[in-house]
């Protein structure tokens, strides 16, 4: 992992009295937190408490009802140009093309994010070497999730927004993701991770946001 060029200790991701309403119900309000480089935030809460919604707000995909999320001082939706490639978002859906092979999917995102990370090592980590030339539609649920995580990992972003990354993963997969998070944090990265498997990720986390 290379270190990100960042100015020391200043907060980089900040939520200022965020509030989101959905269908006449307030999911959360007055949510404030700051995330500094090297910190991982865990978002927990019951089903339907608004974890996914929060992550989408932080990614700039959803506009909050009130308050704002800022990235290095800029309101997230207004982040434009190369700064956008500093954020990566992995939702419940995997963003893979079912008709392309594992390698083609990864290649596409690698070129799309302008990344130069070597792929072989990544595929080995994900234990996908055997499926390299298999189309996504023939993969098992967990294998798909692994490919999606690979696409996420290949983007050289400083802020990771991960929505239940451990879904469908086996034990080794969960350990891999926990390891990645620790590594990312150590290199000065930030992450906001929504999960129901708190026990697997709490070691790498420094903030917990309970919705």
């Amino acid at each position, binding site marked *: 992992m290379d270190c990100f060029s960042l100015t020391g200790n200043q907060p980089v991701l900040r939520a200022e009295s965020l509030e989101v309403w959905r269908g006449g119900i307030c999911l959360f309000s007055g949510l404030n937190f700051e995330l500094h480089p090297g910190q991982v935030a865990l978002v927990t809460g019951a089903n339907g408490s608004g974890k996914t919604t929060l992550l989408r707000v932080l990614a700039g995909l959803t506009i909050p009802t009130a308050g704002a999320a800022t990235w290095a001082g800029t309101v997230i939706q207004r982040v434009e140009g190369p*700064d956008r490639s500093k954020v990566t978002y992995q*939702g419940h*859906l995997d*963003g893979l093309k079912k008709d392309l092979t594992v390698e083609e999917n990864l290649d*596409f995102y690698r070129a*799309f994010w*302008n990344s130069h990370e070597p792929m072989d090592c990544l595929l080995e980590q994900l234990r996908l070497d055997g499926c390299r030339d298999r189309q996504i539609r023939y993969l098992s649920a967990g294998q798909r999730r692994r490919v999606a995580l690979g696409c996420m990992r290949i983007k050289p972003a400083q802020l990771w927004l991960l929505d239940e990354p451990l879904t469908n993963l086996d034990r080794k997969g969960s350990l891999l993701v926990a390891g990645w998070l620790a590594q990312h944090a150590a290199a000065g990265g930030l992450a906001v991770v929504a999960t129901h498997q708190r026990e697997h990720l709490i070691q790498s986390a420094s903030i917990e946001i309970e919705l």
Partner: protein
Amino acid sequence: MNAFVLILQRDLRLAFRRWSEIATPLMFFIIVASLFPLASSPEASQLRESGSAVLWMSALLSSLLALDGLFRTDAEDGSMEQLILSPAPFGLIVLAKILAHWAVSGVPLLLLAPFLAISFYLPLEALPTLIIALALATPTLSVLAAIGAALTVTLRGGGAIIGLLVLPLTGPVLIFGTRATEMAINGESALGPLYLLAALAVFAISVGPMAASAAIKVAME
């Protein structure tokens, strides 16, 4: 620019991966255009009269048909979010997707049109005009269909609704296109309607992708 090329490449590869998808709109075009005469009376003079109308209608339909999945597949597998979050301008990405669609649906249609025109007994002198008119019209049709597809991207049954939203918009294209063909058949110069078709195409390509990308962003929110 990089993103533009990449998306174009990926969409073309997806289309070629299932080559049947390229063959099918074409087959559709041929079948419609050949079933039609079966259903109407078979005299040559008649066929020539309705020939250009049928050509245009089936060109329209086949270019609309293939478009249902243009954005929907991306939206449903989560790639659309990744594309929205890319540093490249989203309008450019949408334009690349439209271009890829046109390359696999519009271009082969242009190549086939002359043969059908001949089989409908259209006069040979009218062919160049017909092809130019189709070449100008199909990109516009693709853009229009893309706007429809964008508006309905998260709605179920969008495939059918696209027709509803977009067909009225295609009216002008069809009118100028058939007018040009008719004038060419009668041996007149069809420059007037061709200019209008070109103007429509320029307008559609410059404004369409922006409109479509805005619609997608709102729909995905």
